């Protein structure tokens, strides 16, 4: 832990810092007024009192450098160069707002100027800044990333995982803690076992610096050193800025239940802007003091700028209501893939996992920005040989081992994708990334939408699902229904090596987040796979077997079991049409409905749980759109609604088997 050295900057820089802080202050006070007038529709977290931090740090940032921030992010956006009109229009819900009215106070996106977004969730910005740092390192770009977060974030796992990852990969990142002493209303002195944030840098082997966050020159100097260090490739720095917000957590909230008026007045007396003005008026290292009239003139200019910006923001139109569902996914940009070759003509047989490695290798060759991250996927080639041979060929930066830090590296992947990489996260078992569910669902799935389509999210999250071989409950889950529920995620669940290669290639080629879930019992299954590159579009079901009497929809391992069941009932004269949706999201309802129109009967076989699951969704769609085609009730056959046990006897009892599927088909025929 170190303390910043005495500041020494030139006069022009000092005046510019002063002007920036004033711009933030006056914009915030205008927003506070507008909140009272009802112009701000939701929350309004002002930055009043903390202006020195954003301004002091971001004075060193150029357009190529990136900022990831938190719910109190107005100051960061303005300091990064966002015009006040865009910020105010955003809070007024207007189409000219920086997020086109999608975000409000807590979701500010301006990727054009390197303002990569603020988040309503405390913590993810730390991981995302690390991700941007990873992109800069991978692409050898001369750029740095900064994460701004409050003292409330440092007791969160993201802080721990993010700082550690940035440390081990020596990422060019500034972690700027704005210690304003309250996490909303909970005092940091109460919440922290070690209230010295800067001292925590040592835990991760990185420098930790504590500065007076109300002294813009001190912040400026500390940040300068950290930025230079980052640009030299020496890794991240943690900067703790001791500061205070002098307005309520959010406009309109009560303030004096958890702190006193006296305390607030004390800190108001330490106003960073007043202190900066005094410093400028006094002396200036070797230069003459600044003339007070000049500073007054600057203040008037800023006041006028804010007033005019506010007027324009108020006059700006609201977005069209019909835009409320656009940009959930990226616009399709790749040319339509060539139709996949027919399997029957291909003599070569390889395993499911080998097929995915081929697709991954092709993607590595096509895009330099593709990298894989996961536990044991480097030199070792992956627990399931999912990256076999890639480390040797593409090196450790693109085939990157991680600590057991799922939330950390998934959040890092989010930031990496936001900054222009195409990360592939190999999480081994789907159960493991539940620790990162917030990063997937709250961040990765939503960034494209919240940024109004200006940031794409080419993240592929791959790993194993499924019951078998006594893996027990923490290595047997599926979860595709859960992910399929959320807008912004693609969910792919292949059942054959041929499909696995084509669908994985498609996932890697696209700009959307994809969960690529591989049933572990299928990984070593062999099938005909052409050595050439090919892609299979997402959202196209495969008709595995044509039939006339009953439609069976099955996924992954259940496709094989349902095929066996179809053979059994064929001998009884029942003709089964077996459909493998292949992707849960998007779900090819059309193919299922066409089949049901033919057969009049629908059975959905799903290894995982019934409630709110894939079968429920398909059944609802069929009942809705195919009602007049149904000649029998829709049936589901699911795994038992219980965690997966270890003993083979117990495990066996919890998943559907071919004979049970056959029985269900016969039962359905009798309906």
């Amino acid at each position, binding site marked *: 832990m170190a303390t910043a050295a005495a500041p020494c900057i030139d006069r022009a820089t000092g005046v510019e810092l002063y002007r920036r802080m004033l711009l933030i202050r006056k914009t915030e006070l205008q927003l506070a007024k507008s909140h009272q007038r009802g112009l701000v529709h939701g929350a309004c977290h002002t930055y009043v009192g903390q202006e020195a931090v954003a301004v002091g740090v971001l004075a060193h940032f150029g357009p190529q450098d990136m900022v990831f921030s938190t719910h109190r992010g107005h100051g960061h956006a303005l300091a990064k160069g966002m015009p006040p009109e865009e910020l105010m229009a955003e809070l007024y819900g207007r189409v000219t707002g920086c997020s086109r009215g999608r975000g409000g106070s807590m979701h500010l996106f301006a990727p054009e100027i390197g303002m990569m977004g603020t988040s309503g969730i405390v913590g993810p910005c730390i991981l995302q800044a690390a991700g941007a740092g990873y992109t800069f390192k991978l692409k050898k770009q001369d750029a740095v990333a900064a994460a701004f977060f409050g003292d409330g974030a440092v007791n969160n796992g993201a802080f721990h995982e993010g700082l550690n990852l940035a440390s081990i990969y020596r990422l060019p990142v500034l972690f700027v803690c704005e210690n304003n002493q309250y996490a909303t209303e909970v005092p940091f002195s109460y919440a922290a076992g070690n209230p010295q944030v800067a001292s925590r840098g040592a835990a991760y082997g990185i420098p930790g610096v504590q500065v007076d966050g109300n002294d813009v020159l001190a912040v400026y100097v500390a940040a300068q050193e950290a930025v230079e260090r980052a640009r030299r490739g020496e890794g991240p720095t943690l900067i703790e800025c001791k500061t205070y917000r002098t307005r309520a957590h959010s406009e309109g909230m009560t303030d004096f239940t958890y702190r006193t008026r006296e305390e607030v007045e004390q800190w108001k007396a330490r106003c960073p802007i007043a202190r900066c003005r005094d410093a400028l008026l006094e002396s200036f290292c070797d230069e003459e003091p600044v003339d007070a009239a000049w500073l007054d003139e600057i203040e008037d200019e800023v006041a006028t700028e804010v007033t005019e910006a506010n007027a324009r923001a108020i006059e700006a139109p609201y977005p069209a209501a019909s835009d409320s569902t656009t940009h959930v996914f990226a616009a399709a940009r790749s040319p339509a893939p060539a139709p996949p070759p027919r399997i029957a003509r291909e003599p070569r047989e390889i395993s499911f996992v080998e097929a995915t490695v081929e697709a991954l290798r092709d993607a590595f060759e096509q895009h330099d920005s593709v990298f894989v991250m996961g536990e044991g996927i480097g030199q070792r080639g992956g627990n399931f040989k999912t990256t076999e041979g890639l480390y040797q060929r593409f090196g450790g930066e693109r085939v990157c081992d991680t600590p057991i830090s799922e939330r950390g590296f998934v959040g890092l992947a989010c930031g990496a994708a936001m900054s222009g990489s195409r990360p592939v996260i190999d999480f081994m078992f789907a159960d493991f990334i539940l620790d990162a569910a917030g990063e997937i669902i709250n961040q990765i799935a939503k960034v494209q939408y919240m940024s109004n389509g200006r940031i794409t999210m080419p993240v592929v999250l791959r790993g194993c699902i499924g019951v078998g071989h006594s893996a027990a409950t923490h290595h047997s889950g599926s979860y595709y229904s859960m992910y399929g529920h959320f807008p912004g995620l693609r969910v792919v669940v292949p059942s054959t090596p041929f499909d696995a290669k084509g669908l994985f290639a498609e996932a890697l080629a696209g700009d959307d987040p994809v969960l690529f879930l591989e049933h572990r019992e299928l990984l070593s299954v062999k099938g005909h796979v052409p050595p050439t590159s090919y892609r299979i579009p997402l959202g196209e079901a495969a008709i595995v077997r044509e039939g006339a009497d009953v439609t069976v929809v099955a996924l992954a391992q259940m496709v094989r079991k349902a095929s066996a069941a179809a053979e059994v009932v064929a001998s009884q004269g029942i003709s089964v049409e077996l459909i493998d949706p292949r992707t849960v999201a998007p779900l090819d309802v059309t193919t299922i409905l066409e089949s049901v129109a033919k057969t009049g009967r629908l059975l959905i076989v799903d290894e995982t749980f019934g409630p709110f699951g894939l079968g429920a969704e398909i059944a609802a769609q069929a009942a809705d759109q195919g009602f*007049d085609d149904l000649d*029998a009730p829709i049936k589901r056959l699911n795994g038992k609604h219980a965690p997966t046990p270890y003993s083979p006897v117990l495990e066996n009892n919890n998943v559907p088997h071919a004979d049970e599927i056959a029985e269900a088909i016969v039962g359905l025929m*009798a309906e």
Partner: protein
Amino acid sequence: MTIEITVPRLGWSMEEGSFCRWLKADGDAVREGDELYELEGDKATQVVESFDAGILRIATDGPQPGDIVRVGQVLGHLEPRSGRAGSVRSETPTRGPNATPTNGQNATATPAPAGASSDGSRDAVKPPPALAPVAAASGGIGATTKHTTSPRTAAASPSVRRLARQLGVNLGAVGNAGYSLSAADVLRIASRSPMQSPAEEAHAPPMAGEQAVTPRARRIARELGVVPSTVVGTGRNGRIRERDIRNAASRAPTTPSAGPLPPHDVAAGQPITHLRRVIAQRMMAACHETAPVTLTARADASELVRFREECKRTSDEQGLKPPGYTELFVKLCGAALQKHPALLDQWIDERIVRMDGVHIAVAVATPQGLVTPVLRDVPALSLRELSSRFVRLIDLARQQRLALEDMRGGALTVSSLGGYRVEAFTPILNPPQTAILGVGRITPQPVVKKQQVAVAEVVALSLTFDHRVIDGAPAAAFLTSLCDMIESPLGWLLA
């Protein structure tokens, strides 16, 4: 694009109707608004106009005149006038319970009674062989008639249909209310339904909605023109499935000569004809939804009989038809209604609405069943005008060509059983009408006149009125006035 011509719903409870005839030939060019075919719906025969234009294509195996057709059934197609001709899929004719070949044969084999009527015999009109008339096809219980071409029958969700099955409510007979029936509707209907003995239940013919029918089977049935209620289900709990419908369709005779139903098959029973079902619905509705009271009175009709004889003699000389007793009673009722307008009040949609004219319905028997054509503005008509209009209505009724309009808007119905040895009876109301007059046989009877016993031509009148709408006194006052008018009729008849 080829456009299907489907059977429209003509009345609120119409599930099926009788196809009368095409008014255009196969291959004719049809314009929008052209008269396309005639269809007998709820007792009214309507000319159906085309909504679309095109070349008419009538499949040779499509519905024949007299066939019972389901609402929504495809009768034919309109092909685009130019360009590629669409393919016409022939529709299997309906073989429902009401579409047995014998039914159609009956309709054509019965000698046309219109001839008898036009011969001058009034007997065919005077003694209508039924106890009560049936309401006009529309306007019953205040419902607005909806003409719809929707192919769907009774709208109800699967759960409501199940509830209906459990409670024994026949959704087919409830009719299409224009909205999906709720469970509450079914419970309400169930609470109104009469108790059925198990024996009756066993013999009750199957009706639509009683069995579970899969949505697909329902759709296929519509396409193939099969009435699901005639089919035995092979699914779980007897659920009717697609295969059952297809089997039924393939078993159905393709020509009318393919063998009649075995006669006197007690187990199978006789299918309920469409007309009988409509009558039953009307009668049940009247019984359940009105508060009927019947008043009886005897009147000396000697003057009336003398007047009729006079008319008959002069008419014969002039080669004209004399007015029948029915017309005389209608004319007198018109005068009595003017005097007692309380009887013009009707209970419609939870409001009391007074009819704006004195229109009187008359129960008329036809070979197809009982109909109730309406004579409008009776007080404004001379007896001769009234008589000639009545004759025309009867002719239309015999030809099954009464339009809905001819049966709407009656204020009171006159139903005469005077051709039989019936003295008095209890007519059932014809909703939404508030009163119905039953006329018995005119017979010579001893009467006391000026303290002397004398013989007079006496008629018994039975007036049923709806006590929801009016009380006993105004009804009695009406009946009293009518009796007075019968006893001194000339002034009223010649007014």
